[in-house]
């Protein structure tokens, strides 16, 4: 059975007077991969950043409406708790340039001042890196700086960093748009693996990718959630003709 983990009701977000997310209602089931699609500038990133309260870091940004995780309002919690429960991976890989690979993985603990025994740290690092299929590649250079890795490796390092915090939900904002095809497919395989333990919400422009990796797909248009359904249905038999137009490439 499906239980809902993230739910929004009448959710709106704006930059100053620029209203970019309009009345979004959505139920996101646990342990699924959700793809978020839509033309550029339609508010996908903004909505995603509202889920873990990164949106409010931008001066002048506001939001209203209901957004819950496990039926608790995210906007009643402190952002620190929200972000520990809902991890995020960004479009461009952004490992901490001053930290080694090892420290990058453990950054959520180390930089937060959480002291762990060495064995436990080693376990988390190995576990997280194995999860993102990076362990074999970097296990001999854990003390090198994270920025020495290739783009795809850096992105997987960032995913490992988010995974190490054991969140419940992972948000991805176009995680593969800065990567080459091989790295992209490695990351895509990851999504399947991660699904067992986490709920993934992935913003992507790549329709094949959405079709390949996601269970459900949400289509945004001009700030509105136009359609939200099983990915198979969305790609074979969309109900809204805006979705239809988008999928068939009539506008981009």
């Amino acid at each position, binding site marked *: 059975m499906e239980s809902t983990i993230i739910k929004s009701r009448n959710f709106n977000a704006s930059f100053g007077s620029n209203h970019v997310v309009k009345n979004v209602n959505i139920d996101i089931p646990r342990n699924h991969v959700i793809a978020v699609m839509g033309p550029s500038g339609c508010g996908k990133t903004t909505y995603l950043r509202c889920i873990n309260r990164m949106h*409010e870091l931008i001066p002048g940004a506001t939001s209203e409406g209901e957004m819950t995780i496990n039926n*608790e309002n995210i906007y009643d919690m402190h952002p620190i708790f929200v972000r520990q429960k809902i991890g995020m991976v960004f479009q461009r890989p952004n490992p901490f340039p001053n930290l080694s690979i090892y420290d990058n993985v453990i950054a959520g603990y180390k930089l937060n001042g959480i002291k762990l025994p060495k064995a436990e740290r080693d376990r988390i690092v190995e576990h997280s890196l194995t999860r993102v299929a990076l362990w074999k590649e970097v296990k001999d250079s854990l003390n090198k700086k994270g920025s020495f890795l290739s783009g795809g490796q850096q992105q997987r390092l960032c995913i490992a960093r988010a995974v190490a915090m054991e969140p419940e939900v992972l948000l991805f904002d176009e995680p593969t748009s800065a990567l080459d095809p091989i790295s992209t497919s490695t990351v895509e395989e990851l999504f399947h693996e991660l699904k067992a333990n986490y709920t993934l919400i992935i913003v992507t422009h790549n329709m094949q990718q959405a079709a390949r990796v996601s269970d459900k797909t949400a289509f945004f248009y001009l700030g509105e959630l136009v359609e939200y359904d099983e990915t198979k249905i969305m790609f074979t038999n969309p109900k809204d003709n805006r979705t239809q137009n988008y999928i068939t490439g009539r506008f981009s």
Partner: protein
Amino acid sequence: MDTSAKNSVITRSDLPLRVINSTPETIARAQKKVRRSFRQIRTETVFRRTLTIMGLIMIILVLGILLTLIIQSLPSIKSLGLKYLWGKVWDPVQDIYGAWPFLLGTLLSSFLALLISIPFSLAVAIFLGEYFPKGWMPDFLKNAVELIAAVPSVIYGFWGLAVLVPIVRNLENHIGVEPVGVGIFSSSLILAIMIIPYAASLGRSMIQMVPSPLKEAAYGLGATRWEVIRSVVLPYTKSGLFAGVLLSLGRALGETMAVTMVIGNTSLIPKNIFAPGNTMASVIANEFTEADKPVYLSALIELGLVLFLVTVVINLIGKKIIDRFTQ
């Protein structure tokens, strides 16, 4: 960017963080994590307040400086009035206070210094900004000019006293003015050296900002390098260069030690540019600890107030011009 001001209500429901393998240790650790998170939230709030307070402190500091200067110069403002500023005699023993000799000394020495330094700082700016932006020679020049700004002013003063003053004395002998050596002219020379870096480095960055299509257009019309500089680069950067000169002037007006050491320290109105004199800064440096009467001290502080206001205005105008230029 204020993340937590709104929506920072912490509910009990925040507590359960997810525990993957729930053994007693992992649960205990999760609880500890939650407790420390609450601690961090409090620290975060304190930190944000501290930052704002630091920002406030800067404002309070400057207002405090202004207020202190005004309050402490009130006795002099009250008893001497505005005519203090153009009173021609300064004789604390007789209780006569006129600031004109110092205003004149300051203006003369600063503007003379500016006049001498402008060709050099402009040359440095053009050389580094346009002719040779890269290479070891310009690097050397750049570092040398930075070094000019780094040498302490008391060392300039000492050198001026030991080396420059005798040379100027010789010169004065030749041209037939009273050969004292110390005086406005000597201090202008020292000041001129000291203020070169300010206009030079600003001018350099301004010149480097000239869009190259502009220059290329002129080259395309067959202009020579100098013509491009004259008719494109300099007109384009004119306001920026002016701002650099203003900043230099601000430095020159406020410079104390080097000037105090070579200007001769007399309170008479300088008869010519070779005569000894005093600037506002140097008279404060010399007489502040000797001022035994309240009005005397207060008159000195009023000089400080004037100096403060003048340099503030000059610097702010300079900064505004730079801001407008860089936008």
